[in-house]
């Protein structure tokens, strides 16, 4: 009888999820197992005693101010088949506005499918971001669609824009908060992101 009780206790012990610290990325709105807390900077679930407050990546404010179209970070001219911006690590602090990037396209690139490929990735733990492509007149040409792979387990969401550019146009890329996105009731109204702007001549 005692053996049976011991076996039962041991068997039931295997019915408790064992989640080690730092083994999970935080879910939306800093979602973590109850015994862990979300570290805003690494957006991983860790022991509550080790959690640090959110800090933007080093050097993120070198391009500030870039909160308006008139003060947008100038990336230059778009070259055929080249990457304009690769894995730029930037940040939206609490209370700050949007980030703007600008570039022009004057060429006439030839290819099977010359198109702008803009991708932004950001941790889903904090406030969701949105991505817009705006022409020189201030008209929104395209907005970012969710393009996160179904098997992506990096704790990040991806937004993508794929559109053919028009020659002689100045473009602006705007990164801002999703006004409808959850922000932990204002407690996680900040985020970091990686931005890629490429101009492939083929592919989709």
């Amino acid at each position: 009888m005692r053996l049976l009780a011991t076996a039962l206790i041991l068997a039931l012990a295997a019915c408790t999820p064992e989640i080690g610290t730092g083994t999970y990325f935080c879910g939306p709105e800093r979602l973590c197992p109850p015994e862990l807390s979300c570290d805003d900077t690494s957006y991983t679930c860790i022991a509550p005693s080790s959690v640090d407050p959110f800090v933007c990546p080093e050097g993120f404010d070198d391009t500030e101010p870039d909160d308006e179209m008139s003060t947008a970070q100038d990336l230059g001219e778009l070259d055929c088949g080249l990457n304009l911006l690769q894995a730029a690590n930037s940040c939206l602090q609490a209370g700050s506005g949007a980030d703007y990037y600008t570039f022009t396209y004057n060429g006439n690139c030839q290819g099977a499918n010359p198109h702008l490929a803009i991708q932004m990735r950001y941790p889903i733990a904090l406030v969701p971001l949105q991505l817009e492509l705006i022409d020189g007149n201030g008209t929104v040409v395209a907005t970012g669609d969710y393009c996160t792979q179904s098997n992506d387990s990096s704790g990040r969401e991806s937004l993508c824009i794929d559109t053919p550019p028009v020659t002689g146009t100045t473009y602006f890329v705007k990164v801002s908060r999703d006004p409808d996105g959850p922000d932990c009731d204002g407690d996680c109204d900040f985020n970091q992101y990686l931005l890629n702007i490429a101009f492939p001549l083929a592919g989709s």
Partner: protein
Amino acid sequence: MRLAIVPSVVCVVLLALARPSLAQSPSNEQSPLQTFNASANADQPDYFGKKSVPQKVSFRQAKPRTRRQHIIIASLFGGALAFGGIGLYFHLDSRDASNTLSIAGGEPIRTYDRAADSLRDRAFRSRTLAIVGYSIGGAFIAATIAAMSMTQPGDEIISIDDEPAPKNTVPVSVVPVRGGAVVGKAWSF
């Protein structure tokens, strides 16, 4: 063959009628020869010269439970099996969910999203249900044991006397003979 048996049967019947003592001999469902010998030599010394003394044989036998008691015990045991099965089902469900979710250590490899949170809730909910199921199943097992103990009917002592069979019994005899057998039965009027 049938023609040979019929006269033999008739013969034995006639013999029995002619000898009432044979018809009234005790029957202990033995062979007819033994029956005859037992009847004829009941008061005679046996082969070893010892006189047959009637003996009383006693043995202990468990009394059967009543049908109602059997139903109660079976129902309790059935309840134990049912709740044990429910506990096992939720136990395995909880274990699967826990194994899916558990990561002991290392670099982050998954996102703790709503689905993971639901899986964790399921693991704990099934764990609780497993404990409840096992507990109730255990209570039913205890109740089954208690019911078996409480309804223990005890033993009874059965005695069999080695007395001669009632004298009005009539033996049926089958005597093997060469090429067949003789079947006989005796009646007295």
